[in-house]
């Protein structure tokens, strides 16, 4: 009987684990629960400090000790007080948009091909992507700078975007591939049977189905790009993105504007992730 039970495929519902657990009164369980929350609190602590000091009524640029509560740094005239900081934020946003769109398109092509077709070289291609995902950022940045130095091209916004597209492609591809692999191909066959050309089938049937995966790939690329420091540090030259500006400002003090911008990026990111998650869940329910 046990053998039969084991041969059955894994239960699709994750609650199966929960159903058998309560019988066992494992004393460590409550302890582990508390421990998990402790680690989450530890993970959240520096974020809370960052958010809190965006409300600090500090008189100058030094924002290290608590003075009093204020909303004033959120006013546009205060928030954009440092033109070079504002420029850095804009450059970060522009590069993130460009990098996420380009890597979204290129990565989707790779992910679709790897998920759908068996072809010569797919294995080595997987290895190339694996190397790109697991390579240290320091080495990617240093080697890209080596390339640009050797070629004698300058570095600036274009090279930052090139670098960000490079490290995002594999992530988009992996996300899209995992969706394409579980695609129900009978839907496409049905479209073909009804006389749709492969081109029409792709755009009218396949693409809408994989679109949520493409979107989360693009969002992931956007998040990777806007927060990136190490690779950007090597490929930026004298140009400053938001993280690079902060790095340069550490010696002269990080003004509260940085906390506010960090808080806003955090809020938008969290909100976007929640919306994307809710939408993909309701999408799964309707399928």
């Amino acid at each position, binding site marked *: 009987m046990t053998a039969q039970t084991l041969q059955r495929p894994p239960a699709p519902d994750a609650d199966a684990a929960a159903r058998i657990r309560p019988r066992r009164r494992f004393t460590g369980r409550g302890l582990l629960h508390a421990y998990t929350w402790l680690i989450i609190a530890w993970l959240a602590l520096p974020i809370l400090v960052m958010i809190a000091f965006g409300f600090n009524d500090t008189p100058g640029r030094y924002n290290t000790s608590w003075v009093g509560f204020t909303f004033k740094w959120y006013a546009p005239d205060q928030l954009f007080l440092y033109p070079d900081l504002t420029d850095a934020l804009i450059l970060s946003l522009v590069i993130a948009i460009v990098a996420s769109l380009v890597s979204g398109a290129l990565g989707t092509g790779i992910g679709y091909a790897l998920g759908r077709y068996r072809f010569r070289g797919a294995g080595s291609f997987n*290895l190339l992507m694996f190397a790109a995902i697991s390579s240290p950022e320091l080495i990617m940045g240093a080697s890209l700078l080596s390339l640009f130095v050797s070629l004698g091209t300058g570095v600036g916004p274009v090279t930052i975007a090139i670098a960000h597209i490079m490290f995002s492609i594999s992530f988009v591809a992996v996300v899209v591939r995992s969706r394409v692999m579980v695609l129900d191909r009978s839907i496409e066959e049905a479209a073909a049977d009804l006389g749709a050309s492969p081109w029409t089938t792709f755009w009218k049937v396949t693409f809408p189905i994989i679109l949520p995966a493409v979107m989360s790939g693009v969002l992931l690329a956007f998040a990777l790009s806007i927060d990136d420091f190490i690779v950007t540090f090597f490929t930026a030259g004298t140009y400053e993105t938001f993280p690079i500006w902060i*790095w340069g400002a550490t010696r002269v003090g990080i003004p509260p504007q940085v906390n506010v911008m960090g808080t806003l990026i955090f809020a938008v990111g969290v909100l976007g992730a929640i919306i994307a998650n809710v939408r993909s869940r309701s999408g799964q329910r309707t399928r």
Partner: protein
Amino acid sequence: MSRLKRKIAPYLLVLPGGLWLLIFFAVPMIAMLSLSLQEGDIVAGYRFTGHWQNYTDSLSAYQTQLIRSLIYGAVATILLIAIAFPMAYWIAFYGGRRKGTYLFLTLLPFFVSFVLRTLSWQQILADEGPVLSPIRDLGLVGPAFHILGTPVAVIGGLVYNFLPFMVLPIYVALERIDPRVVEAARDLYANPIITFRKVVFPLALPGVFAGVLMTFVPASSDFVNSEVLGSSETTMIGQVIAAQFLDNSDYPTASALSFVLMVVLLIGVFTYARILGTEDVMKVAAR
């Protein structure tokens, strides 16, 4: 679709992204190798002379920092396994319907720039900060006690910044365990400790290995944590490489060091890929 079209379709899809990865990921490594064998100075320019002494010279000058980085990375990785495993275990087995929420909370730090998070820790751990000043006022530690500037602060920062990369793969591995396998162990009179040691832990090992890969590589090549939280006593190889590249423009030394670091880390990465395959890491990247 004609047979020919079907044959070339995957290559056409892979081509643009593949070329991008080849030109901006693989070729730069060659550029870096070439740069590491050049001689000259920034004013007169560098020429390729096959000057392999760059390797011996830079290694003897910076072996302390290289070894220190590998030790910090190893210590951080061991701590990460110890900290992440219980948390991943609890989320996977007892998270119930809120699993997604707990994972999301684990990923919260990724919505704040790496640099900002680390600077936030600098503020928290400062001599006059909220942690150290109360315990100093209580007389628990002397006035000469610091956290910043010590290896504890640097390794702590590494552990903090890379924790999600350890929790996620272990969680993915644990979640795949069929609860009935655990149940079977218990039916066969294994106590919880033996069940864990003989059943759960071995099945979670691929996740632990993926986590080690995803944390050791960025931790040992990091330069942000030791720059922000450390001192001259904690200088890591990443800082040396960044300074040689960007401040001193000593490209041959910098690329020789990068190349050594890359080879050390890549040997680990490819041994991993050979033995365990690339799927576990790719799966985590896809989440």
